[in-house]
């Protein structure tokens, strides 16, 4: 029990919360056909985080968020500039900016020396759920012990903060997000600015990316943002139901994905465990495959 609380519970929570926050904003990325924007956000926040750390000398949440947002904002402006001023095709502009920003981030990481002390490139790429541990846990009573709870891994606080902010904004602006995603020209004529709502979606994607980056990593971020909403989309034609189902799939991916990472190697007699970020993404992908094959609304059987 104690080892479950010390090692498995915090890691499972981190993986699951990351899946939830990514899936939530992912719904609107998928609907506005900007799935790759989630991927882009994961890449562009890296130089922002590194620069913020070098300047401020701390990995405090607000420092990381500020750096990530500055980088996301700068990248979004750069994409707009390339698109409008230089006439570059939008997805090409996005591709050029996010790979260049990521390369800059890796360069800064290596040059500033923080790659060996604070950030691990391998973890940034592939995620690292397993370092989320709770050494203070000593049995079930720790769950009700404020002193012990205070030593929960800091990632959890960041993820919970991100999830609350994203959920609150989506609940409050649900109909504005819906009309802009469906018919931006009409939205503008009723005084709801698609540019403003679009900037909000980008900001929330950046927030989701920065709070979950340390857990799922840059490469798997897009899987967490796209798979649960795309799976839910195949099962319903109602936007609200889609968002709720996507959270259910994210939750299931987090829990089962982590369980598989821990239990599958044991079943085959190996001492090591799999990277949970990878198994969570694989489970999310399997849900989508199942929905494509067996889903009532959108699946292959109906359209074939």
């Amino acid at each position, binding site marked *: 029990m104690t080892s479950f609380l010390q090692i498995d519970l915090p890691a499972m929570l981190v993986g699951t919360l990351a899946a939830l926050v990514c899936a939530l904003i992912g719904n609107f990325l998928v609907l506005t056909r900007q799935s790759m924007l989630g991927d882009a956000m994961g890449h562009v926040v890296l130089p922002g985080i590194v620069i913020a750390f070098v300047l401020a000398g701390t990995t405090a949440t607000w420092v990381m968020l500020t750096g990530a947002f500055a980088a996301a904002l700068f990248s979004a402006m750069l994409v707009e500039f390339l698109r409008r001023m230089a006439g570059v095709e939008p997805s090409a502009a996005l591709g050029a900016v996010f790979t260049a920003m990521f390369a800059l981030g890796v360069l800064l990481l290596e040059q500033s020396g923080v790659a060996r002390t604070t950030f691990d490139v391998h973890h940034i790429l592939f995620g690292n759920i397993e370092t989320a541990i709770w050494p203070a846990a000593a049995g079930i009573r720790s769950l009700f012990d404020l002193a012990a709870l205070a030593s929960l891994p800091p990632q959890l606080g960041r993820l919970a903060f991100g999830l609350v902010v994203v959920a609150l904004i989506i609940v409050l602006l649900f*109909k504005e997000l819906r*009309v802009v995603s469906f018919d931006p020209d009409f939205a503008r*004529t009723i005084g709801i600015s698609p540019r403003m709502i679009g900037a909000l979606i980008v900001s929330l994607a950046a927030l989701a990316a920065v709070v979950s980056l340390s857990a799922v990593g840059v490469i798997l971020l897009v899987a967490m943002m796209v798979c649960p909403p795309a799976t839910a989309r195949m099962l319903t034609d109602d936007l609200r139901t889609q968002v709720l189902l996507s959270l259910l799939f994210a939750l299931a991916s987090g829990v089962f994905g982590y369980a598989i990472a821990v239990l599958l190697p044991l079943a085959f007699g190996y001492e090591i465990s799999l990277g949970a970020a990878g198994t969570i993404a694989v489970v999310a992908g399997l849900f989508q495959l199942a929905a494509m094959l067996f889903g009532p609304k959108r699946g292959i059987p109906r359209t074939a």
Partner: protein
Amino acid sequence: MLAPFPSNRVSSGIMPIPPLAIRDLSVQYGGRTALENFTWTAPERGLVAIVGPNGAGKSSLLKAVLDLVPKAGGTAEIFGKPVSEQRDLLAYVPQRASVDWDFPATAADVVAMGLYRRIGWLKPLRAADHVSAKKYLDMVGLSEFADRQIGALSGGQQQRVFLARALAQAAKLFLLDEPFAGVDAVTEGVMTRVFRDLRDAGSLVIAVHHDLSSVKDIFDTVVLLNREFIAGGPVATTFTPDNIARTYGVPLSLNSGQ
């Protein structure tokens, strides 16, 4: 001396403010001019067809009036004020092909969007709004399709959903982009009837229209354009073979359709 009476009428405000007054409007995309120095003042009420060949700037005209594309020059006033101050008075129906009909929404969901401005920012839809949306769907003959996913509707039904959304806005000025494009006969009949009801209630309906053969049957006013204003006025006196030839650049038989 001139009789003072007519000028008194003007200064005392009996002369109505036109629903739409466009002066010297120009639209450019990149270096290409889509519309140049377009000037036209709409009648107080009625059904107006905007007619011209492909690429004549018909959609650009509507979009520039609505601030959806930037104006390269000129002004457009809705009841005497800029569009940003008159959003409550207008309803816009974009081209059907401009949105993704695979979107997770029912017909009632889309119609309810016409109520969003009155509901206000941050506030959720309530049960009464859903009832209201169904009422507008009923007006276009789609009450039994309220809970149907929009992608499962026919093209004509989708166009009627857009019309119901515009009705839900309770506007005085309706701007529609190609509402009759690719619709069935039932939809054409419903739309013509709804347009006439709106006109009789004192509204102005302006529609980009592509089918020359039906202009006389549906509309009472016509505006002919081809990157610039060619002619505008009552269909009976303006929609002449001569003006049509000037608009399309070649003599065109009215019966050939488009």
